[in-house]
């Protein structure tokens, strides 16, 4: 199956690099001391908005809810000109068709969670069917979850093969692999899971489902960004990063942007390679953008609640 071109030497994941927790936390804290003012703040905010995967993943999601969210995705805040759209709308497989139709030719992607999201506790064939269904419905991107139980049990080959199988089921759709870092327990394991996902074919690695606390944090994202950098150096292949859950304020999102800028640089500073998985972040970013334009903070009443 593998051509000579795509052959990667798969490392022994049990030997993946070790991470020093204190060091990572210190380094992550350092990014937060960057002072982002004036035009760099405005440009940063626009970039953040353009990197958002606007998300609704609820049992009570309906066509109506998804359609409203899609309108918001295309028209975040028409009262102010020059505001970019978000990157994608992220929904359950059953909502992909609705989202696809609502987004039309806006260029905004439809991302769908799949593989028995959020727990991933289903047999592989069910996960594959779940994925194919979402792709057939028109999903541009698939957000899968890894089998954390198997990972903790040390069955790295199982986790690897499953990701590879889902990647195959994705076809043209880009695959984001959710590690659910809040369930992994240490940075060492986050690093190991990141490598398994990347070597198995992930286009993106993603921190969390948003259903488990803690979700995305700066230190955990830093560990993953550094894994992406090392993978890029080894293979020449870029992998995207998506922190998800827990990023609801602009200031924090800008700190993440600083981190991407200083760890991976220019090539990753766009929504093809970096995303925020968030629902409430968009409005806070809009509020800040309007403030940069008018000099005044407006009431939350001026921003649509979706």
């Amino acid at each position, binding site marked *: 199956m593998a051509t000579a071109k795509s052959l990667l030497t798969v490392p022994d994941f049990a030997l993946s*690099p*070790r*991470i*020093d927790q*204190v*060091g*990572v936390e*210190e*380094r992550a804290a350092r990014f937060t*001391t*960057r*002072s*982002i*003012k*004036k*035009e*760099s*703040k405005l*440009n*940063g905010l626009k*970039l953040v908005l*353009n990197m958002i995967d606007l998300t609704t993943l609820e049992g009570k999601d309906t066509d109506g809810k998804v359609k409203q969210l899609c309108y918001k995705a295309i028209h975040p805040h028409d009262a102010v000109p020059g505001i*970019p*759209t*978000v*990157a*994608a709308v992220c929904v359950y497989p059953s909502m992909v068709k609705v989202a696809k139709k609502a987004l039309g030719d*806006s*260029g*905004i*992607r439809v991302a769908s969670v799949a593989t028995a999201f959020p727990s991933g506790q289903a047999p592989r064939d069910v996960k594959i069917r779940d994925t194919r269904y979402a792709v057939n419905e028109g999903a541009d991107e698939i957000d899968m979850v890894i089998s954390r139980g198997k990972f903790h049990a040390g069955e790295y080959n199982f986790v690897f093969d499953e990701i590879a199988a889902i990647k195959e089921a994705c076809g043209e759709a880009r695959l984001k692999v959710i590690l659910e870092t809040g369930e992994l327990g240490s940075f060492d394991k986050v690093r190991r899971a990141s490598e398994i996902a990347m070597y198995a074919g992930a286009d993106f690695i993603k921190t969390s489902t948003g259903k488990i606390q803690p979700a995305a944090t700066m230190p955990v994202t830093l560990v993953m960004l*550094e894994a992406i*950098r090392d993978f*890029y*150096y*080894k*293979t*020449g*292949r*870029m992998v995207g990063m998506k922190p998800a859950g827990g990023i609801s304020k602009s200031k924090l999102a800008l700190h993440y*942007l600083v981190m991407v*800028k*200083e760890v*991976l*640089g*220019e*090539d990753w*500073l*766009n*929504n*093809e*390679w970096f995303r925020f998985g968030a629902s409430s972040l968009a409005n806070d970013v809009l509020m800040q953008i309007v403030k940069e334009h008018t000099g005044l903070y407006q009431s939350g009443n001026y921003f649509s609640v979706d």
Partner: protein
Amino acid sequence: MAVTKKKAAPKKSNTVKLKFDTSWNYAPAPESKSAATIHKQYDLFINGEWQKPSGKKYFDTINPATEEKLSEVAMANEADTNKAVTAARNAYEKVWKKMPAKERGKYIFRIARMIQEKARELAVIETLDGGKPIRESRDFDVPTAANHFFYYAGWADKLEYAFPNRQASPLGVAGQIIPWNFPLLMAAWKIAPALATGNTVVLKPAETTPLTALKLAEIIQEADLPPGVVNILTGAGETGASIVNHPGIDKIAFTGSTEVGKLIQRAIAGTNKKATLELGGKAANIIFEDAPIDQAVEGVINGIFFNQGHVCCAGSRLYVQESIAKQVIRKLRDRIETLIVGDPIDKNTDIGAINSKQQLDTIHKYLNIGKKEGAEMYESSCPLPRKGYFCRPTIFTNVAQSSRIAQEEIFGPVLAVLTFRTDDEVIEKANNSPYGLSAGVWTDKGSKIFNMTKRMRAGVVWANTFNKFDPSSPFGGYKESGFGREGGLHGLMPYINLTHQS
């Protein structure tokens, strides 16, 4: 406007390069200078008041980032030193020695609190006068200086518990001479333990960075410390010599170059003066192949580029195990590209100005030596400001143990990278230096840490971290890095005589 489509075909891994010259950049974010009052001229702080220098001479202190004059300060001569030592002696005999320890402690606590209250002003002045980034003076120098006073204030009335069954008595008048790399912090390191143990002080700040010590004099005055307990004399080497040679001084505490340290030791030989010397260093920072690499790289960066490398315990010799050398060097080169070199008053600046023209010349001299020795030189591609004294963060690889850049203290943002194969080899090489101030070890293996730290001839050995300071932890050197310890319980010892209680 939605997703920017970029097809990323895999590139050959040996050609890929991260681009840190990004389209999204940080706008200037200068800290406001309005918080800081700098007078046009400063006199000498003797006996609790500002006194004109007897020689009527003043010298300029400049901002090394702009080469502009900030102020002029008095040049103290022998007569001034005499006045200051007399004032300190009187204060010692008549007031400070007799005062209940608890009351002495209260004064020191007051100074600590006032440093905290004036933290922003002190940070701005430190940065303007010395060239260090405001991020460091704000987050490190000033808070650590305050902590030092707090810590030693606590000891003032507890010396009997520090030294059970023994009686601790002060020495008398301490002459203290401090360097330009951490002006306020070094003043705190020197003054706090001296006062806590009941000594009085004559302190001389460095010629290029007198302003925060003079600000501290204002704080001391405002704190109502009895006149003469702390005297601050500004000046150059001759002023320092007049303090060292003054017969009324009981103890010398010096932080600075090994060269001057040797002069001091010669000068006080045969006298009754006690001394502590904290001198140069050429710290070995050792990365083993089992280390957490990214955190180690970050630690190496902080170890050498903190305060432009003007740190006596800077990790200026990096030993990397050969199996990971390529990887580590690649990461180091990436990392120096993201260090922001520029105006120290900007809150985003990582590397500020070199402290003086003279120091910049010294660094350039070593850069040339490194090149001539055949080492490979990598420097950041960042632009440098046109005015002021600046130097790009620089890494030399392929350095030999016998190279001068691996042996001599450069005191600038210059890292020498050497490789090794075995534990025994690296211990031997790390100890193969006239200095022995600090060292660092990076490994995931606990047992290796203890083995290494036991065999390393250095006053401080950091494991999986670097440049960590705490007032409760002693600091000082082996060999030509000096003797005596500052900080912690050990830092009280150089300022007391101990007698057995009857």
